[in-house]
């Protein structure tokens, strides 16, 4: 079908790995920020770790190449909402430290 059967899926896999790595770093920073905020902070940190684990589980096939290559997958909205969720939890963690 194409002249480059290997490269396109490979590049996409690597892009997924970079993205999941970035999400992991952001999650670590969110947890670090949240843990200074008492009980509410601990709950926010727990939510961040749970969201990170769920995202990693559902996107693992894309990052390792075991998942099918096809359009219209749910992994795209899942990982985008994980990033937006990390932003929300981070903002809440910053705000809880002010009170």
């Amino acid at each position, binding site marked *: *079908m*194409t002249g*480059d059967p290997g490269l*396109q*899926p490979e*590049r*996409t896999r690597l*892009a*997924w790995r*970079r*993205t999941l790595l*970035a*999400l992991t*770093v*952001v999650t670590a*920073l*969110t947890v*670090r*920020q949240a843990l200074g905020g008492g009980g509410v902070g601990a709950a926010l940190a727990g939510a961040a770790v749970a969201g990170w684990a769920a995202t990693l589980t559902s996107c693992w096939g894309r990052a390792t190449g075991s998942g099918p*290559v*096809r*359009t*219209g*997958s*749910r992994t*795209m*909205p899942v*990982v*985008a*909402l994980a*990033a*937006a969720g*990390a*932003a*929300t939890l*981070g*903002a809440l*963690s*910053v*705000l809880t*430290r*002010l009170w």
Partner: protein
Amino acid sequence: MPGAKRIIGVVWESVRRWFDPRELRSVGDPPDYRFSLANERTFLAWLRTGLALVGGGLAVAQFLPPLPLRHLREAIAVALLLLGGVVAVRAVDHWARTERAIRLGEELPASRFPAVLALVVGLGALLLVVAVLAGGVGSR
């Protein structure tokens, strides 16, 4: 309020569309998979841009000493975090609309968002340069 109801309807419709792969696969023809993968990588690059903004916001909150203006540090952090979240949500919306256009053989959706984001980031950087210069002169 019919206006608010309409907006909620549009938002709900978009969210439903992002999460329903069957609906995306039902329109048009299956494209050359390389186009889909390229669209996917563009989405991931946007997502990393958003994550970089989120990480920057968290770094500002955690590693910057408190600024002379009260809560300015927290305000900068929250602004960066919100901007990162907006970039992420817009990334998935743009990915879905592009995928749709590819399948239908239409023109790709145009967007002002990159220009707006560039202006916002540039303006923020300019403000910080002014703040640093003013702070440096003031402390002397």
